[in-house]
């Protein structure tokens, strides 16, 4: 049976791993390849690097990190942040990434998803959706989420579920869904957002934003229907280990790949 994946995310700025609250207040948390190798050893099912500086002149730094990581960690690596063209995606894949996640650039130019999927296959194209709850309007209005871009600084007016369906139709092989309300807050994943999207698409959905403890991973899968769960802070700061998260998921009856120290 297909395992539910546990994916540590490394937010990378200027060649270092950082983590902030709601994408600001960045704190340095280590060397990306070193952390990546540690996670692979500890049972991570995949790795995600999000380049949150993404300034074009820093591109070389990121590619170097990707290459050094791919030589040390023999598990899948997704890289996102600032990829705007087919050629930029090619460079990241050539450095050793298996997938690229598209975010702001795909919202600005949705056909980019189609061009990248045609060139590299849809399995290499992850569309990252940062969404925020729409809280204005009558209390009786159905739940809705708006897509935000540029690291949460800019609202788009785009409905997150509608955008998710369109992204898949254009060629996204996976969706990485981040709740901007929850990101970095440790208040749990937005399982209603996840469920709204999972029910409308066939591709795997990766839950992101808000993990505080192992129980949140279980809820993202059971309540949200997520295929994979991503987290950053709780792993970097060793608040919880990957093995601990997987043991909790296994105890809840979810299929997980063995991590060292986990009897699945």
């Amino acid at each position: 049976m297909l395992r539910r994946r546990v994916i540590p995310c490394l937010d990378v700025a200027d060649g270092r791993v950082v983590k902030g609250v709601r994408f600001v207040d960045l704190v340095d948390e280590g060397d990306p390849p070193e952390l990546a190798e540690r996670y692979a050893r500890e049972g991570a099912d995949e790795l995600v690097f999000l380049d949150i500086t993404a300034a074009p002149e820093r591109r070389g730094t990121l590619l170097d990190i990707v290459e050094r990581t791919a030589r040390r960690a023999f598990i899948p690596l997704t890289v996102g942040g600032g990829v705007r063209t087919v050629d930029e995606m090619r460079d990241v894949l050539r450095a050793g990434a298996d997938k690229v996640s598209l975010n702001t650039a795909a919202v600005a130019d949705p056909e980019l998803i189609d061009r990248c999927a045609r060139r590299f296959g849809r399995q290499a194209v992850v569309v990252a959706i940062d969404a925020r709850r729409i809280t204005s309007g009558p209390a009786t209005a159905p739940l809705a989420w708006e897509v935000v871009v540029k690291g949460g600084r800019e609202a788009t007016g785009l409905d997150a579920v509608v955008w998710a369906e369109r992204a898949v139709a254009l060629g996204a092989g996976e969706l990485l869904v981040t709740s901007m309300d929850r990101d970095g807050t440790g208040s749990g994943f937005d399982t209603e957002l996840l469920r709204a999207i999972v029910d409308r698409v066939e591709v795997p959905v990766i839950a992101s934003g808000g993990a505080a403890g192992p129980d949140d991973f279980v809820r993202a899968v059971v309540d949200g229907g997520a295929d994979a769960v991503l987290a950053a802070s709780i792993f970097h700061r060793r608040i919880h280990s990957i093995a601990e998260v997987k043991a909790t998921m296994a105890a809840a009856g979810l299929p997980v790949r063995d991590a060292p120290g986990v009897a699945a």
Partner: protein
Amino acid sequence: MSPTATPTRIAVVDYGAGNLVSIEQALTQVGAEVTIARDPDGLRGADALIVPGVGAAAPAMERLEAAGLVDPIRAWIAADRPFLGICLGLQLLFEGSDEDGAQTLGVLPGRSVRLEDAPTLPHIGWNQVVRKREHAAFAGIADGADLYFVHSYAGLPAGGLTDDVVLATTDHGRPFVSAVARGNLVGVQFHPERSGTDGLRLLANVVAAATVAARIPA
């Protein structure tokens, strides 16, 4: 392998269908010397041939044709020389693909078909590879080990899941063929280069088999 022995040379076919970096790094990690083959000359001196690849069958076959590699690959397999097909590289071994109607290499009877009743597509992630029989390629890897998949289609041999060529199956909604073997040919639907320690072990086993084959004159 003794330190004085010549490293086993593995030719990895590059036909523009996917990323070779990870497979090259993984093979280097297990001690092989890797050459990237973009034309028939690239196969010269190789002890084993690996055809990786992701994506659709028709463009892949067009690129293999354009590189002049279709006949050399068929001849390599016909001579029962050590061969590993990975993901699309396994699917291409069959006669055709339902994905785009492409005619493929046709060295194994059967077709590539879309995964049926799959709860998610593409099938992405770690899944259990359950063996139908033992094989040197899986030496040291537990039966039912989790390996990493990324695909929506899979090869279906003419004789179905019980065909003699089937080495292992995996379940995603329904069982599909996740590994095949015939003589010195091995094909795997998962990505050993991205499947952690067990994946590296499979590649090491393939390299070891090629090392042995290289020492026995044909």
